[in-house]
Every structure is written in structure tokens, then in C-alpha cells.
């Protein structure tokens, strides 16, 4: 079957089997590699993207379910000012070890800061509770998100 949707601002049309997951369609058919395949059961958050603006795990969606939807991945936010602040804060705070969880962490953190410019440390933890860092670098990640919030906060 054919699925038509908006990927990072561009209309795309892809031929898929109905049992293909969204993460597989993005990686195998569309060359979107920021969405990582970790658990493939919705537990680890490595495949997180924005579906019509809300963070979801793309391993838990069937490809045909995004018909007519807006899908945004890290690739589509490369020039976004909030994402640039987050990316720099992650680098400067050492919030990356192996890097496998990073795209998902950035997407979840982006959605959090977009909706809440002044999160508490607890709210940051709640915001990334669906993303697992198996290097256990959570402290640096939380510090990086709080640092990014400082950068975007107007004086």
C-alpha cells in the first residue's frame, strides 16, 4: 500500500507493507537514520520523533498510520534555534557518551522546552522518562536541558 505524509516539511509518498513499523519505513525507505532501533517495544525511546508535534516512539506505529500526518525527526530540526541551543548545551555539558540515545533525548527535550520554557529539574526528569540512556549519563543530560533552558530564556 501507498502512504502519503509530510516528512520534515516535504510531502513524501512511500510503498510499504502494512506490518512495517514507522521506524523501519524511515530508516529503510527514506534514509532517516536519527531514529534509532533499540528495544522496538516502546520502552527505550531511541526512536522518538514528533508526530503532529507530539513525541511518540516510532517503533509502536505502523507505517500506514501516518497517512496525512506531519512527521518531524532530528533531521528536520537542524536549523531550529531551540534545537541548536539544546545541541550545544548537550555538547558543552558532556551529555553524550555512546550517543545512541541522543537523538531521542534531543527530541523529548525539545518538546519539553517548546511547551515549558522554565522546567524544574523534576519536570525535565518527567520529560525524558521515556528515554533510556544505557550509559547511565542522566545527570549530565538533565543539566544540559536545564542549561539550554537558560540560554533561551529572555533576560
Amino acid at each position, binding site marked *: 500500500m501507498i502512504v502519503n505524509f509530510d516528512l520534515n516539511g516535504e510531502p513524501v509518498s512511500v510503498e510499504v507493507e*502494512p506490518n512495517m*513499523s514507522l521506524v523501519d519505513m524511515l530508516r529503510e525507505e527514506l534514509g532517516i537514520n536519527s531514529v534509532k532501533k533499540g528495544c522496538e517495544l516502546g520502552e527505550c525511546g531511541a526512536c522518538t520523533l514528533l508526530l503532529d508535534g507530539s513525541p511518540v516512539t516510532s517503533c509502536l506505529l505502523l507505517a500506514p498510520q501516518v497517512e496525512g500526518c506531519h512527521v518531524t525527526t532530528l533531521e528536520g530540526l537542524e536549523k531550529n534555534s531551540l534545537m541548536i541551543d539544546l545541541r550545544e548545551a548537550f555538547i558543552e555539558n558532556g551529555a553524550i557518551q555512546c550517543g545512541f540515545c541522543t537523538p531521542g533525548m534531543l527530541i*523529548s527535550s525539545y518538546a519539553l522546552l517548546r511547551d515549558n520554557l522554565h522546567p524544574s529539574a523534576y519536570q525535565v526528569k518527567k520529560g525524558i522518562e521515556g528515554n533510556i540512556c544505557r550509559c547511565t549519563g542522566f545527570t549530565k543530560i538533565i543539566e544540559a536541558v536545564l542549561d539550554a533552558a537558560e540560554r533561551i530564556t529572555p533576560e
Partner: protein
Amino acid sequence: MRPTPSFQYHAPKTLEGAIELMGTLENVKPIIGGTDLIPQMKEGVFSPDHVVDLNNVAELNYVREDNGLICIGATATHNQIAASDAVKKSQALLDAMTMIGSPQIRNRGTITGNLINASPAADSAPPLLVHDAEVVIRSIDEERIIPLTALFTGPKLNCLEQNELLTEIRFPTPPVNSASAFKRIGRRKAFTLSVVSAAAYVEMEGERCVDARVAFGSVAMTPIRASEVEDMLEDKTLTASIIAEACLAARNHVHPITDVRGTAEYRKDMCEVLLRRALEAALERVR
């Protein structure tokens, strides 16, 4: 990892269309959030020949207050429910909607799926049980409305026939002199399954509790109400000693098992603790 074997995918736009597909197709599964169903299909628990996606059925997507009832349509997500004005009147359900899963799961998952999955640990069940919730079930032939307690028939088992859809969850709007709370304990705080959960609802006239309702998760074959405990709280002033007695008694009205998440004895201990916390939180809110 894919759901295998493959299936035919259907995306009806109307409820009538969805019900007709459910009634005419063989080996069919409805999907909404898919947060339980997709992993189950990947692991081979379910291998449907047809999947009916309800997400495009606009008439199933609502949370509203209607004639003294709070009504939740089948496709309303946890986050959508948490953000609705109607559900602000049930603090216990609101508590559960912010604790269940993760942001990603709450953006996609639904109460409908959480209930249909029928896990004894389903976090949306105890709050809905203390609100005396009913569920509306539709098929080609009929509409039936049953109490939520009748939906659960065992661990991971529900009473729906293959051709039926759960279309709405509803419960009476809680009166202003009432309040509720939901508490749980997991193996960790973030994104976890409940080892034990408890919901409490109290309706007060001055210092006297005129209606008390108590429900637990993960301590029996299904989520349960504990009417014997409720009787110990009703028509009483809820002093610390009355609450302590009722919470102690709760241990005798639950039937937990020992599993990977906790022992039966620990679960009984936690029923006592969580019920006290839930009652205290509800009383704090009603004042």
C-alpha cells in the same frame, strides 16, 4: 522486528464502518494507540489477519461532560484526557493519567487500550473503579453498557466478543463535596509498571464521610474494589485511627501473588500504606 505474519490494514472513517468491519472480518483486531498491541503482535501473542485502525473515526475522539456524566471516547489519549476540563473533576484519574507510561506512551496510548489489555496492574482501572465507571460496547447487533467491574474476567482477559468495540468510558460527575486520589508504587519512579496501586474516593458532609470507595491494582486476578474496607469508612468521621483500622483491614481483602515485581507479603504491606496515602490525599483535596 515486525508484527508477523502481515495483515490487511483498514482505516474506517466512521463508527458504523468500523463496527461493520469488526463484524464481518475474520481474526480481526482493533488498534488505537498500539502501545500494548504492537509489542504483543511483535512477540506473537496476537497474529491477526486484519487490523482495524480506529484513529480516523472522528466521532470516537472526545472527552466531555454530558448530563451529569463524564464521557471519554475510545480514541482519547492519556495526555488528551489529562488536558481536558471534564477530567479535572476526577483527581484520581488525573493522577493516573500523568503517571502512566512515559510522555511518548501518554501521547499515543488510551484508557480504552489500557482497560481492554486487562492487566491487573492497569493504572487507569482503580481510579475508574472508584467512580463507578461503565463502559459502552458496540457491535453490529447491539449496544450494551456494563459496569467496568464486569469488563475484567481475569488476568489479561476481558469480556469483549471478537466483533465488539469498546466505544466509551463514562462515570457520574463527582459532586463538589467529594475528592479522590490515586497512589502507586513501582520498581522505580519513572516509566514503570505498578507493583501495587490504590485509589480512594470520599464524599463528605462536614466531618462525616457519607460515601467511601476504595480500589486496588496488582493485588488480585483483576483490578478490584474493596467494599468491606469501604464499609469501615462510611458514616464515620475519618480520624487517624479509623483510617489506620481500615487500611490494616485492606490486607485481608486483597489476594496478591508473588512475582518478579514483588512478593505477596510486600504487596499486602503496600496496600495498607498506599490506601492511607490515597485517603489522606483525597481528604486534603476535599477540604
